[in-house]
């Protein structure tokens, strides 16, 4: 067993365990912290797959910015744990059965039909580095990049408008 295989197996176990912990925690703060750990393990997978820039943005954008926003809203609303309410008693077993079917389909396609084939090819040395990624992003994909900035501006304005309190209100 090579070192990379051992690293992959351990981190895969950590990723699945933290995802399940996110799902089954009673307290939403614990869920958010489990999800941060999950995002960090996925960032290590990106490093293993030769995508260092994506890994760093995963840590800073997802594990940093997005999850801090989540924790802020959880603590702002005091929504750590809601009282359990089941209006649809058959929903939980049905959901579990459907997700088992979904996972079974994915496993069938991967390991029986073998849609992806075998081993990872060796990538070239500078593949996925910030330099090559930046060159492609700012030449071939310049227009989508600019549209992304407009999208972020719209999201920012939308968030302010949604939570803004009018002067005469209340």
């Amino acid at each position, binding site marked *: 067993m*090579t070192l*990379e*295989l051992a690293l992959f197996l351990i981190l*895969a176990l950590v*990723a*699945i365990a933290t*995802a*399940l912990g*996110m*799902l089954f925690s009673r307290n*939403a703060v614990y*869920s*958010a912290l489990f*999800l941060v750990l*999950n995002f960090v393990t*996925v960032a290590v*997978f*990106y490093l293993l*797959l030769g*995508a260092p*820039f*994506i890994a760093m*943005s*995963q840590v800073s*954008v*997802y594990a940093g910015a*997005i999850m801090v*926003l*989540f924790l802020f809203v959880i603590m*702002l*609303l005091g*929504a750590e744990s*809601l009282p*359990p*309410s089941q*209006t649809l008693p058959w929903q939980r077993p049905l959901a*579990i059965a459907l*997700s088992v079917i*979904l*996972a079974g389909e994915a*496993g069938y396609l*991967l390991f029986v039909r073998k849609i*992806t084939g075998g081993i*990872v*090819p060796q*990538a*070239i040395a500078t*593949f*996925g580095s910030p330099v*090559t*990624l930046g060159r*492609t*992003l700012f030449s071939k*994909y310049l227009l989508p990049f600019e549209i*992304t900035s407009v*999208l972020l501006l719209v*999201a920012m304005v*939308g*968030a302010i408008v*949604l939570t803004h309190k009018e002067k005469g209100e209340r």
Partner: protein
Amino acid sequence: MVPVSWYIALSAILFTIGALGVLIRRNPLIIFMSIELMLNAANLVMVAFTRIYVVLEGQIFVFFVMTVAAAEVAVGLALIVAIFKTRHSINVDEMNSLKG
């Protein structure tokens, strides 16, 4: 080297857990986190396929997915805060009308 199909299997498992979270949890914040988990699983598949077919477009698309996820979280959490301010509850079972 680890076969790429293992990464894709891992990402399928993570996606399934996210979908299960959307279906069985009643707290909209946890539903949001499950959606983030599913987006992350899709990103992992894209980076894995980028590694098989040595093209950079997959990683660039992951970059765009991250930006869209950030925008989505900002607007979604603002919506949750707005709903909480009008109804003083964020249980998804009680959100059944468009007008507050």
